[in-house]
């Protein structure tokens, strides 16, 4: 949006309506994930404390939400006062000056309690631009009963080779048990999140130091071939349409032997009301190939305030509440410790009540600590981000690449074709973007 355009339109506009009077209504845009829905359910606790603030929720499916929020912030629409964004958006939008810096969140906020890796991902030039609501890495979740039946034992830090062996041993197609469930649905936040992180452990990377796309390398070829081989032989049918939610449903209904995905899933798969396999779930670090990097990512759903918001103070008050330790305790009191939003604060992992209730806590923390957004792969990279590249072009590009890889998984093209098309696509896109 530039001044020329603003001026042009301003001249023809009938009125420039300023909505200053009712500044105390905040509109919160969020994803329809379980933790956010819980937060929405607890709104009354917040409004009881702050009767002068009215909260309006806009809860949308992730893709629709992202589309609406991005368009709104890019056009300065000011529709939202609090937005739910991730570690991909925050550095870009913060640098563009579209987010309000959260420097003065009050004494109770305790910014130093935030996990360093997460805090780093949300900080631009020394300013925190969004407050983490929950953070996640990825890890292996597996069925202890099936592993035992297969006569195998999951090491704490498995290799990809072991994963393949275990997947083969656990697969029982007649009973609809598939050794491994992985993301296949196309999207930069779906299959490409998994594959980019996996590629890191195979020594592959998105770009070299000169921003040249690397899909023509041996390392990427190894990554994709291994993934396709694994999924074709031991994966569930229709894997190319499975994202996080689809795999979660499969795992909860006992159809997956192993599932490598977000650490937050741990509380869903161990929750007896939703999961039929709650008593038989074990956890391990994401696999590696002995190259010094594991295939785990780092992500934090965070709450930020668009600079176009007209209720920034009220929004800050809300964010301070929703991402505080006090909120964690509130959730613990209402729904139990296992359901608190994980992965944002060190203090949570020092809390014995949480550690007792969440058998996955230690593995989550170790996974998060082992991910390094500034040096995600074996070789050096010019970008930050483990499972993404923090440049504006990434989302569009990675979604298109994801569609190629998804098509390869569906058997519509070979791994070589998918990679060479991805390389061509990425080269074209990066040239157009001026790299």
């Amino acid at each position, binding site marked *: 949006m530039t001044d020329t355009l603003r001026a042009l339109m301003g001249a023809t506009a009938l*009125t420039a*309506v300023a909505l200053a009077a009712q500044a105390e209504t905040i509109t919160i845009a969020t994803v329809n994930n379980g933790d956010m829905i819980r937060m929405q*359910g607890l709104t009354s606790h917040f409004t009881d404390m702050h009767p002068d603030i009215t909260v309006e929720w806009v809860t949308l*499916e992730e893709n629709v939400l992202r589309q609406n929020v991005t368009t709104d912030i890019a056009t300065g629409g*000011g529709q939202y006062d609090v937005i739910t964004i991730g570690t991909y958006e925050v550095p870009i939008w913060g640098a563009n000056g579209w987010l309000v810096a959260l420097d003065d969140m009050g004494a109770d906020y305790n910014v130093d309690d935030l996990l360093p890796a997460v805090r780093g991902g949300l900080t631009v030039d020394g300013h925190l631009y969004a407050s983490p609501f929950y953070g996640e890495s990825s890890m292996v979740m597996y069925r202890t009963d099936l592993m035992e039946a297969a006569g195998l034992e999951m090491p704490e830090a498995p290799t990809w080779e072991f994963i393949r062996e275990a997947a083969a041993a656990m697969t029982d197609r007649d009973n609809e048990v598939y050794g491994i469930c992985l993301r296949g649905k196309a999207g930069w936040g779906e299959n490409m999140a998994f594959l980019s992180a996996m590629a890191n452990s195979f020594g592959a990377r998105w770009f070299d130091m000169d921003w040249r796309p690397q899909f023509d390398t041996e390392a990427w070829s190894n990554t994709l071939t291994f993934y396709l081989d694994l999924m074709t032989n031991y994966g569930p049918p229709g894997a190319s349409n499975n994202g996080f*939610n689809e795999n*979660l449903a499969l795992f*909860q209904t006992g159809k997956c032997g192993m599932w490598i995905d977000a650490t937050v899933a741990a509380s869903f798969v161990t929750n007896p009301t939703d999961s039929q396999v709650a008593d038989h779930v074990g956890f391990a670090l994401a696999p590696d190939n002995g190259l010094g990097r594991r295939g785990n990512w780092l992500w934090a759903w965070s709450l930020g305030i668009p600079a176009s918001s007209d209720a920034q103070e009220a929004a800050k008050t809300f964010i301070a509440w929703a991402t505080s330790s006090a909120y964690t305790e509130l959730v613990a009191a209402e729904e139990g410790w296992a359901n608190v939003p994980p992965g944002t604060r060190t203090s949570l992992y020092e809390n014995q009540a949480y550690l007792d209730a969440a058998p996955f806590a230690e593995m989550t923390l170790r996974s998060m600590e082992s991910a390094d957004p500034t040096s995600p792969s074996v070789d050096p990279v010019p970008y930050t981000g483990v499972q993404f590249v923090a440049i504006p072009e990434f989302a569009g590009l990675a979604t298109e690449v994801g569609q190629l890889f998804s098509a390869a998984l569906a058997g519509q093209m070979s791994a070589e074709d998918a990679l060479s098309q991805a390389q061509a696509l990425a080269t074209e896109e990066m040239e157009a973007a001026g790299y």
Partner: protein
Amino acid sequence: MARAVTTQRKIVFTALAWGIGLMIFFPILWTILTSFKTEATAIADPPVFFNFDWTLENYRVVQERSDYMRYLWNSVALALGSTFLGILIAVPAAWSMAFVPARRTKDVLLWMLSTKMLPAVGVLYPIRLILIQLGLLDSKIALIFILMLINLPIIIWMLYTYFREIPGEILEAARMDGATLKDEILYVLTPMAIPGIASTVLLNIILAWNEAFWTLTLTTVNAAPLTAFIASYSSPEGLFYAKLSAASTMAIAPILIMGWFSQKQLVRGLTFGAVK
């Protein structure tokens, strides 16, 4: 023409028609059934049809999370508002095209239809920027106008074709009797045009109710209709078929019921001049 085979024929055709009818309706029936199941029953294999513990739990959960009535009201307001406005503008236009044809009438009509082919997403940025300048983002007024405009070509066309079938001689006779233009419209044309207008109204309501691009991208809270309500239930975490079904049923039920009750009126005018 009574024949021996008639009854037999009738049985065969009845069975066939009911079979196909039920098949076409089945996805909707299944959605409604699933909305009364638990999440586990919803994905049960073999599927359960009627023999399960009916529960209203999904509706309760959905209602607790989203204020259904507000979305419903917005949908009603947008659908009725845009239809009312559209009819107000379309009836005179279609009337004059039908009864006072000019050389360019057909071209104008075609041009109107072609405006409907503008791919919405291509003009998303311009429209948004204009609305921001006017302060009309997330306002019902703006959406009523937009929905009216995207359906206007269709309803003008529909009315035009309907009006054309009204015999011109009647008008001439009325004019001979000294009827003014106003009389013509009020006492001669309107009664004959009512069925066509009624079915146009219904079609426009359906189209406006189901529009899912602008209503989703230009609203947040104040103007968000049921299309936005549904967007909060597609693929959440974990099992969701039953809740999705409940939300879907809530979103389509009002228009479905309206459609069924008024199907006779809808059908009567839905010819687009196809019947001579």
